[in-house]
């Protein structure tokens, strides 16, 4: 599903590469934790997958499509196969919960009929039935993240990228979000989650890829956050 071969990314402003000769393969339906200290290259990794940036060298494939050779106008199509969730939720504050989710479908031209059917379904799935007409600032952090997940998942992406989705949440709420991501993973969606939360990593026992100074320092199936922690 996701394949990196000798990927290096150097930003012009920094002498040290953000990613340094990284190769990995993530299969369809996998649940992967991406860990590492700040500045280890996690965000760069996610940006490259979304083709927000191009690697300096090496090839990246997502869903058998090579991102390097992909032309600009094909990028939207790629992103429709991927969902994104962020630490800061990134909801539209002047739109209701349902409108926030519908927005993601409207801007890719889904028919109104489909939107009216799919949005309540996905809101129910994330446990927000009955809150469709609320505005984001009327919701708790956990609920806002559920809206963001609903928006990322409503288009049934093949890959869900989550950049520290529990970074702003308390442990209990985080637990709920993780259950939700697990449920999404069980539908066959590949989930890649960058995180610092070792409680979560240790309790889930999924594949762990650790980045250190832009290099893969560990790649372990059913791993834990860190040795001796």
């Amino acid at each position: 599903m996701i394949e990196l071969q000798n990927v290096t990314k150097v930003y012009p402003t920094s002498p040290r590469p953000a990613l340094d000769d990284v190769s990995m393969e993530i299969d369809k339906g996998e649940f992967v934790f991406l860990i590492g200290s700040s500045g280890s290259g996690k965000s760069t990794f996610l940006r490259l997958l979304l083709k927000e940036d191009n690697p300096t060298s090496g090839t990246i494939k997502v869903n058998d499509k090579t991102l390097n050779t992909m032309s600009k106008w094909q990028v939207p199509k790629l992103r429709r196969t991927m969902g994104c969730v962020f630490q800061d939720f990134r909801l539209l504050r002047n739109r209701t919960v349902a409108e926030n989710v519908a927005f993601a479908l409207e801007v890719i031209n889904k028919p109104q009929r489909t939107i009216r059917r799919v949005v309540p379904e996905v809101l129910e799935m994330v446990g927000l039935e009955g809150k469709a007409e609320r505005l984001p600032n009327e919701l708790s952090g956990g609920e806002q993240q559920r809206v963001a997940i609903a928006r990322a998942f409503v288009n049934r992406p093949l890959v869900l990228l989550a950049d520290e989705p529990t970074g702003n949440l308390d442990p209990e709420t985080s637990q709920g979000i993780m259950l939700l991501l697990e449920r999404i993973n069980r539908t066959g969606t590949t989930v890649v989650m960058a995180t610092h939360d070792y409680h979560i990593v240790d309790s889930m026992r999924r594949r762990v890829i650790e980045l250190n100074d832009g290099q893969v320092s560990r790649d372990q199936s059913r791993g834990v956050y860190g040795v001796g922690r």
Partner: protein
Amino acid sequence: MRVNFVLSEVATGLRRNLTMTVAMILTTGISLALMGTGLVIANMISDMRAIYYDKVQVSIYLSDDVTEEQREAIATQLDDSPDVANYIYESKAEAYQRFTEQFSQQPALVENTDPNALPESFRVELVNPERYPVIAQEFPNGENGVDEVRDEGDFLDRLFSLLNGARNATIAVAVVQALAALLLISNTIQLAAFNRRNETNIMRLVGASRWYTQLPFILEAALAGLLGGLLATVGLVLTKVLFIDRTLAGPIKAGIIPPVDWGVIATISPVITGAGMGLAAIAAYVTLRLYVRL
């Protein structure tokens, strides 16, 4: 493309930057109005050329003591000359009548002018206007009843160079103003894009096409261009009604200045409005490509 969605984005965008939007519309409007005025003047100039150059190129003014024979000799000479395409004779009475018509708005001037003060003349149209010196040679000043031979083309050339100057100045100011309008549009679009970066970021991430993301901004600029164009059209209509038709009524009636009819305004208005919309849209598109990451 979901029309409602795009239109509501446009409306929100314009409302959110109301002052910038108003500034954008006003500068665009002024620029287009000046451009339109320049075109109206250009149109007037070409009408005037048609009126004047075709009618008269050389005037042969006769002296007061001209005899019947001298007058006929001049007419015969004009008839025989291969350089003359056409000519008309204007008597003192006719000259006075034309004078009273031309200056009907200034009765004092007419009253104080002796009907005999205006000379009789031959108005000569040449096959080739540049052959004026030949005619001047054939009819030496002060001989055979000829008082003066005057090249009206020379006077007209000066008049038209003045009018052309006015037109060029108007268009030059319009261009400078247009530059200001375009920069303002570019700025407004950058601001609008910044204000809506949340929306556009999300649109980008969920895979909205480039067009879907950019179109609201481009339409926003085009709409400002359209409103500016309408404003300029109103300006042109007012110029015609309040200035041309009122202040210039006398000379127009006398046939000195051609009238500006509604047809001209009706042709120019869509042109400047279209140009305004097009340029605004292009400015927005270029701005989005160069300065904004969508």
